[in-house]
Protein backbone atom coordinates (compact mmCIF):
# COMPACT_ATOMS: atom_id res chain seq x y z
CA UNK A 1 0.00 0.00 0.00
CA UNK A 2 1.05 3.59 -0.52
CA UNK A 3 2.80 5.68 2.11
CA UNK A 4 2.37 9.32 3.11
CA UNK A 5 5.65 10.12 1.33
CA UNK A 6 4.07 9.06 -1.96
CA UNK A 7 1.55 11.92 -1.69
CA UNK A 8 4.00 14.61 -0.59
CA UNK A 9 4.69 16.07 -4.05
CA UNK A 10 1.46 14.99 -5.74
CA UNK A 11 -1.42 16.95 -7.21
CA UNK A 12 -4.63 15.43 -5.94
CA UNK A 13 -7.93 15.21 -7.83
CA UNK A 14 -10.89 14.24 -5.68
CA UNK A 15 -13.94 12.54 -7.16
CA UNK A 16 -16.46 12.14 -4.37
CA UNK A 17 -19.85 10.49 -4.62
CA UNK A 18 -23.10 11.96 -3.39
CA UNK A 19 -24.24 8.52 -2.24
CA UNK A 20 -20.84 7.54 -0.88
CA UNK A 21 -18.15 9.82 0.48
CA UNK A 22 -18.68 13.43 -0.71
CA UNK A 23 -15.75 15.38 -2.13
CA UNK A 24 -15.34 17.82 0.78
CA UNK A 25 -15.10 14.96 3.32
CA UNK A 26 -12.35 13.35 1.23
CA UNK A 27 -10.58 16.72 1.00
CA UNK A 28 -10.60 17.09 4.80
CA UNK A 29 -8.96 13.68 5.08
CA UNK A 30 -6.39 14.28 2.35
CA UNK A 31 -5.29 17.50 4.00
CA UNK A 32 -3.94 15.30 6.81
CA UNK A 33 -2.10 13.04 4.36
CA UNK A 34 -0.26 15.54 2.17
CA UNK A 35 -0.02 16.70 -1.42
CA UNK A 36 -1.81 19.58 -3.07
CA UNK A 37 -5.55 19.28 -3.68
CA UNK A 38 -6.25 20.64 -7.17
CA UNK A 39 -9.97 20.09 -7.31
CA UNK A 40 -12.79 18.48 -5.42
CA UNK A 41 -15.90 17.20 -7.11
CA UNK A 42 -18.92 15.22 -5.95
CA UNK A 43 -20.45 13.05 -8.63
CA UNK A 44 -23.91 11.61 -8.71
CA UNK A 45 -24.08 8.17 -10.32
CA UNK A 46 -27.87 7.95 -10.39
Amino acid at each position, binding site marked *: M*VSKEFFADKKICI*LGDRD*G*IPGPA*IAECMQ*TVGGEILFTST*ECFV
Partner: protein
Amino acid sequence: MDMANQARIKETAEKYGTDKVVVILGGAEAESAGLTAETVIAGDPTYAGPLTNVALGLPVYHIFELKDLIDPQVYEDQISMMEMVLNVEEIITEMSDIRSQYQDG
Protein backbone atom coordinates in the same frame (compact mmCIF):
# COMPACT_ATOMS: atom_id res chain seq x y z
CA MET B 1 -17.51 9.17 -14.59
CA ASP B 2 -19.04 12.37 -15.88
CA MET B 3 -17.71 14.19 -18.92
CA ALA B 4 -16.67 17.35 -17.08
CA ASN B 5 -14.53 15.41 -14.63
CA GLN B 6 -12.94 13.39 -17.41
CA ALA B 7 -11.97 16.65 -19.09
CA ARG B 8 -10.59 18.08 -15.84
CA ILE B 9 -8.53 14.98 -15.11
CA LYS B 10 -7.18 14.95 -18.68
CA GLU B 11 -6.19 18.63 -18.52
CA THR B 12 -4.62 18.18 -15.09
CA ALA B 13 -2.56 15.19 -16.20
CA GLU B 14 -1.39 17.03 -19.32
CA LYS B 15 -0.44 20.12 -17.31
CA TYR B 16 1.39 18.49 -14.41
CA GLY B 17 2.41 15.12 -15.85
CA THR B 18 0.92 11.71 -15.15
CA ASP B 19 3.62 11.00 -12.54
CA LYS B 20 2.45 13.93 -10.41
CA VAL B 21 -1.31 13.45 -10.40
CA VAL B 22 -3.26 11.15 -8.09
CA VAL B 23 -7.01 10.53 -8.13
CA ILE B 24 -8.93 9.82 -4.91
CA LEU B 25 -12.44 8.36 -5.08
CA GLY B 26 -15.39 8.24 -2.73
CA GLY B 27 -17.68 5.94 -4.72
CA ALA B 28 -20.51 4.25 -2.85
CA GLU B 29 -20.28 0.98 -4.73
CA ALA B 30 -17.46 -1.24 -5.86
CA GLU B 31 -18.70 -1.22 -9.45
CA SER B 32 -18.88 2.57 -9.81
CA ALA B 33 -15.52 3.05 -8.07
CA GLY B 34 -14.00 0.39 -10.29
CA LEU B 35 -15.34 2.00 -13.45
CA THR B 36 -13.95 5.38 -12.45
CA ALA B 37 -10.59 3.83 -11.61
CA GLU B 38 -10.54 2.07 -14.97
CA THR B 39 -11.33 5.35 -16.71
CA VAL B 40 -8.36 7.24 -15.23
CA ILE B 41 -6.00 4.30 -15.79
CA ALA B 42 -6.94 2.86 -19.15
CA GLY B 43 -9.43 5.30 -20.68
CA ASP B 44 -13.21 5.62 -20.74
CA PRO B 45 -14.65 2.09 -21.12
CA THR B 46 -17.95 3.53 -22.34
CA TYR B 47 -16.22 5.36 -25.22
CA ALA B 48 -18.26 8.47 -24.46
CA GLY B 49 -16.00 11.00 -22.80
CA PRO B 50 -12.75 12.93 -23.30
CA LEU B 51 -10.72 9.99 -21.90
CA THR B 52 -11.86 7.61 -24.64
CA ASN B 53 -8.72 5.84 -25.88
CA VAL B 54 -6.60 7.93 -23.50
CA ALA B 55 -4.71 5.68 -21.09
CA LEU B 56 -3.36 8.09 -18.48
CA GLY B 57 -2.25 5.31 -16.12
CA LEU B 58 -2.87 7.52 -13.09
CA PRO B 59 -2.53 6.22 -9.55
CA VAL B 60 -6.05 5.96 -8.15
CA TYR B 61 -7.26 5.03 -4.67
CA HIS B 62 -10.54 4.92 -2.81
CA ILE B 63 -10.49 6.97 0.38
CA PHE B 64 -11.24 3.76 2.35
CA GLU B 65 -7.86 2.40 1.25
CA LEU B 66 -6.02 5.34 2.81
CA LYS B 67 -7.50 5.01 6.30
CA ASP B 68 -4.12 4.24 7.90
CA LEU B 69 -2.59 7.45 6.49
CA ILE B 70 -5.38 9.80 7.57
CA ASP B 71 -5.55 11.57 10.92
CA PRO B 72 -7.77 9.22 12.98
CA GLN B 73 -9.97 11.98 14.37
CA VAL B 74 -10.59 13.48 10.93
CA TYR B 75 -11.35 10.03 9.51
CA GLU B 76 -13.76 9.39 12.37
CA ASP B 77 -15.54 12.71 11.80
CA GLN B 78 -15.71 12.57 7.99
CA ILE B 79 -15.79 8.93 6.92
CA SER B 80 -16.65 6.51 9.70
CA MET B 81 -20.42 6.81 9.38
CA MET B 82 -20.38 5.88 5.69
CA GLU B 83 -17.85 3.17 6.46
CA MET B 84 -20.57 1.46 8.48
CA VAL B 85 -23.14 1.45 5.68
CA LEU B 86 -21.01 0.79 2.60
CA ASN B 87 -19.35 -2.47 1.64
CA VAL B 88 -15.76 -1.43 2.36
CA GLU B 89 -14.26 -4.86 1.75
CA GLU B 90 -15.87 -5.17 -1.68
CA ILE B 91 -14.77 -1.66 -2.71
CA ILE B 92 -11.16 -2.24 -1.60
CA THR B 93 -11.03 -5.60 -3.40
CA GLU B 94 -12.40 -4.07 -6.61
CA MET B 95 -9.90 -1.19 -6.51
CA SER B 96 -7.05 -3.59 -5.97
CA ASP B 97 -8.26 -5.84 -8.80
CA ILE B 98 -8.53 -2.94 -11.25
CA ARG B 99 -5.05 -1.65 -10.38
CA SER B 100 -3.43 -5.06 -10.69
CA GLN B 101 -5.22 -5.58 -14.00
CA TYR B 102 -3.57 -2.50 -15.50
CA GLN B 103 -0.70 -1.54 -13.24
CA ASP B 104 1.75 -3.13 -10.83
CA GLY B 105 -0.81 -3.21 -8.04
